[in-house]
């Protein structure tokens, strides 16, 4: 427990042939925290997680997980890691109890304490009355609770979650996160990959990955404060026409439509962002208003994953 970080990676890279899946990734994941990996599909989240749990050998660079060099003693590491897959991966034709029992057996959880631990988990994850139900017949949220119960059964120090809430309704997702905070509070380090902004928002710290490169790293608050962008929000009756118009304003690097609102990103080196946008809207005779807004995580994400040529322009 003396190491300062649960995960430490330096210049970690993974190439698949000519494809660079992860490019010189530096990572410091503090203990007892929920650390988020935010990024679109194919950005290297899963590849990174697989390297960290020893399933993939890095092409170059090095990483230490829970003080153990990877890839190294994979067996010792696996015993201290809990892993939850994106897709439900427990046995649908076995009951909840049997699934937990199987996991307890393969992790060699002390026999004397097994029964107590399984009951405790069934209780904690609201599955006590579904003990004898086949896992495959449960709803998405219930399956996910079972998966989490199985992932933490052997009391791992590090929990790796690969897009855990992709098949779950918002209420279940909220409940799920409440459980994650409980675990973090109890000292478990959690690394969670996601492409949902609201999930990313809940993490203590966040790394944004784009095409294998880490483009931002910090607490959600820090990230929002340091976008390097003004965010102008435009409310328009005809947002589609407004978007086309605003897109041509000099300095605008991105326009994203959210219903009748437009989120407009303009580099903070430009002094009069709102005026510029408002002037153009007026020119185009559109009924619309422009106001300065605080950056949300979505804006951060758009800002850091912008194509470079657009920023330069």
């Amino acid at each position, binding site marked *: 427990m003396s190491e300062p970080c649960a995960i430490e990676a330096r210049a970690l890279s993974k190439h*698949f042939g000519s494809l660079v899946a992860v490019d010189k990734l530096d990572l410091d994941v503090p203990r007892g925290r929920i650390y988020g990996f935010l990024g679109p599909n194919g950005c290297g989240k899963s590849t990174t997680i*697989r390297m960290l*749990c020893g*399933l*993939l*050998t890095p092409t170059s660079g090095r990483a230490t997980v829970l003080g153990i060099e990877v890839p190294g003693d994979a*067996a010792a590491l*696996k*015993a201290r*890691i809990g*892993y939850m*897959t994106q*897709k*439900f*991966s*427990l*046995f*649908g*034709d*076995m009951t909840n109890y*049997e699934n937990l029992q*199987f*996991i307890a*057996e*393969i*992790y*060699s959880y002390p026999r004397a304490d097994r029964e107590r631990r399984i009951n405790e988990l069934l209780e904690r994850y609201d599955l006590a009355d579904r003990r004898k139900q086949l896992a495959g017949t449960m709803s998405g949220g219930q399956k996910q609770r079972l998966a989490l119960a199985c992932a933490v059964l052997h009391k791992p120090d590090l929990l790796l979650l690969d897009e855990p809430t992709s098949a779950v309704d918002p209420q279940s997702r909220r409940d799920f996160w409440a459980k994650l905070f409980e675990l973090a509070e109890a000292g478990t380090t959690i690394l969670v990959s996601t492409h949902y902004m609201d999930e990313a928002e809940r993490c203590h710290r966040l790394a944004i990955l784009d095409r294998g490169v880490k483009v931002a790293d910090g607490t959600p608050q820090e990230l929002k404060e340091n976008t390097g962008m003004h965010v102008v929000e435009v409310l328009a009756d005809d947002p589609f026409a407004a978007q086309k118009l605003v897109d041509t304003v000099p300095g605008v690097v991105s326009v994203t439509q959210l219903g009748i609102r437009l989120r407009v990103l303009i580099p903070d080196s430009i002094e009069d962002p709102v005026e510029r946008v408002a002037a153009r809207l007026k020119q185009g005779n559109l009924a619309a208003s422009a106001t300065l807004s605080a950056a949300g995580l979505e804006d951060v994400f758009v800002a850091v994953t912008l194509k470079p040529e657009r920023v330069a322009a």
Partner: protein
Amino acid sequence: MKNSLSRLGAIVRKEVRQLRRDRLTFGMVVGLPIIQMLLFGYAINTDVRNLKTAFADEADTHLSREFIANLKQSQVADVRYRSSSPAELEELLRQGRISIGVHIPRDFDRRIVDRERAAVHLLVDGSDPTILSVANQLRSMPVGFDSTPPAADSVGAVEVRPYYNPERRTPVNIVPGLMGIILTMTMMLFTAVAIVRERERGNLELLINTPVSSAELMIGKVIPYILIGMLQLALILGVGDLLFNVPVRGSIVDLYLAASLFIAANLALGLLISTLASTQFQAMQMTVFILLPSILLSGFMFPFDGMPRFAQLLGELLPTTHFIRLTRGIMLREAGIVELYPAVIALAAFAAVALTLAASRFSKRLD
């Protein structure tokens, strides 16, 4: 080590539990051998009997009448019509009313004596090769035919004596071979599908992140199927004995030893398939790809010696071929497993190679 064993146990228990719940697979384990036995045992009959026959006896002598009587007794021919001329026989043949026409020329007695020309003409419906081959057996009927020496006291001096299956009952021949086919099908398919299914459902992604090693996983998944294989073997032997009276003349221990080797070879093959296939459908296709030649080229359907050289070479590459040699040897000819060592060595080598290949592919990491 202790942990490793308990992990292995966990996987075996899980596998058995899932198998018990999978009614269809469980039904196949028991149903497949029984249905195949009934199908092959009752429906397929390679010894043709009671071929519809007509004869035209132009000689009508004591000897010729005796020949006809002999023919009737053979049960191969079902003598239905008596014709007056070869032309009439040809017509019956053409109409499909008979499969064999027997023409005995007027100078039958003399022909038997001087052996310069065939004494009897068989007009055979050659469009069915099985009938043709059966009719060929009739050539060896005792009547101074071709090169057959005409015993002086004539009819009945030379007789056909088939060994090992004197009654020429198909099941006796089929059951030992069928054991090979059924085990090939179930062992290979079940193992391959069991593993590919876990991959498809994502279970494997979970398992590789646990302390379970790939060896534990492989062995743990295979053990229940070894037991199933043994169960099927007992079932086949039981049904074979009960319904078809197929004997086990040799040692049952030898038979089970041979089966263990064969099951090992097939499970290894199933594992290998599972590392190659990414969906259950692909796994099934690959199984059929191996199963079909196992049925056709192993000597199960057609006599191995009668196959072209190239087909024989292919057949030698199939574990089923060697297993069928063992089962026929042990069950019918009362041979010991040691006497049949070439087949034993071939099976062992096959199992070792397939298992090594499967293990090296299976333990591969994700990259």
